[in-house]
């Protein structure tokens, strides 16, 4: 029997839920042939170390938003291009398309990683200390982003300053005015009780976070054929099962936000349309920088657009 450590940075969210369902599905298929151990909440270290851990095989599986894997392979950026996904259904149509899903499973094998799960996580929203209801309100704000062009460039285009601060610095800086807001997945805001710090989020509807679970391919290949098949099947079964859970979970987090006195701001329709137009132009220039990213983006975009026409 072998051990499969499943790591992630969060807890009680869709990533954790996927891991739990996966463990159950796998046990149903192979019993205790593979012993799964779930380590949520960064118990096995900060995100960059978990990413390296699964690459080197010190951790067997890692569930993470794609944006934390872009330094492993730039093609992970394709999922974060502004304007690509606007709804959970967009995500579902693209990543769960049968052909695309097969392609996704093996596309990072050259890095020694196999994708065994791909799930809808949540929308990226802007948390701000002061309400933002128009594009003018974004001007000059200091917004914490990841050090990824997919987050930095959209914020700069809106006239804000993108500051890729260390996560440990975010809360003190928000409280002390060194930072005006951050780009963040909705469930993170409620999990870390950000409503105690500020009350405003603005839903720009420009990006949905996709989470993947990658396994170390060398470890995967060391398993019996029966186990390999079971892992692949359990992963896909889990993603089918948790998709609605994930969508409801996002709705739950919006409700928790409101119940704790938080406000959800929107841009006016005209401004939203203008922003989306600008982001579309930005998306083109962002993906043009890397042909491999562009190829991936175009595949995803075609699937999203095909769905939209139905």
């Amino acid at each position, binding site marked *: 029997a072998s051990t499969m450590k499943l790591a992630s940075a969060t807890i009680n969210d869709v990533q954790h839920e996927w891991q739990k369902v996966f463990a159950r599905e796998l046990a149903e298929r192979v019993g205790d042939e593979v012993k799964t151990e779930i380590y949520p909440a960064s118990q096995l270290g900060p995100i*960059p170390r978990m*990413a390296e851990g699964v690459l080197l095989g010190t951790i067997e599986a890692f569930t993470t938003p794609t944006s934390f894997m872009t*330094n*492993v392979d730039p093609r992970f950026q394709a999922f974060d291009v502004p304007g690509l996904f606007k709804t959970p259904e967009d995500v579902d149509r693209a990543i769960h398309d049968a052909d695309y899903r097969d392609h996704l499973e093996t596309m990072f094998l050259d890095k020694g990683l196999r994708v065994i799960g791909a799930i809808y996580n949540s929308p990226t929203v802007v948390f701000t200390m002061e309400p933002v209801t128009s594009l003018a309100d974004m001007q*000059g704000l200091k917004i914490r982003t990841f*050090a990824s062009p997919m987050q930095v460039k959209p914020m700069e285009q809106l006239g804000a300053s993108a*500051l*890729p601060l260390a996560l440990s610095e975010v809360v003190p800086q928000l409280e002390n005015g060194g930072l005006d807001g951050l780009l963040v997945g909705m469930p993170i805001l409620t999990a870390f009780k950000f409503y105690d710090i500020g009350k405003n989020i603005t839903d720009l509807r420009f990006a949905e976070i996709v989470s993947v679970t990658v396994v170390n391919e060398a470890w995967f290949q060391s398993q019996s054929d029966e186990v390999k098949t079971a892992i692949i099947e359990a992963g896909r079964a889990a993603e089918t099962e948790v998709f609605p859970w994930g969508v409801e979970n996002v709705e739950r987090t919006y409700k928790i936000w409101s119940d704790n006195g938080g406000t959800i701001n929107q841009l006016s329709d005209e401004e939203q349309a203008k922003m989306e137009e600008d982001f579309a132009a930005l998306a083109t220039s962002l993906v043009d920088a890397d042909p491999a990213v562009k190829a991936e983006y175009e595949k995803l975009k075609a699937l999203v657009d095909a769905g939209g026409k139905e």
Partner: protein
Amino acid sequence: MTDMARDPEIGMDRATGDGTRRGVSSGLSVAVEWVVGLALIAIVLVNVANAAGRYVFGRAIAGADELMVFAMVFIVMAGMVTAAWSASHIAINLLPSYARGRTEQLLFLVQDLVALCIALFATYASLGYVTTINRLATKSMALGLPMTIPHSALLFGFAGLSLIALIRVGRGILRLIAGGAR
């Protein structure tokens, strides 16, 4: 406060009290100290520039965090090696303050042997890690720096520690053979 680190009571120059530190090795550790001293001052300046840039101009120096942290990793490894050479690492050192003569030297030898084994294991582990990360060609998030560079700090550090531990073990054995005469 680093007077503390030089205090014989907490271990400095226990086995090298014969004055080996003077001479070539001393020149080398002075050079290392200047490099790390300047590096720390540079980190302080980057830190100030970064915070000022962020507060005053709303603009951070891209990758400043990574630069400072990676520099710190190199400083730690350099410090680990130099402190091992001068036997000034933080230690509890209860027994040796009572042990004298051959017993004391035997304890030092055991410590240096432990250091050698651990350092060799860590060097082996680091070599494997650095080789793999180099093959995978991962880059740091903000600077886009190949992760091989910061990770190799540990490889150099532990290789250096192995070398120093080996020298100390060799010298310790010679001393014991010589009959514990200092």
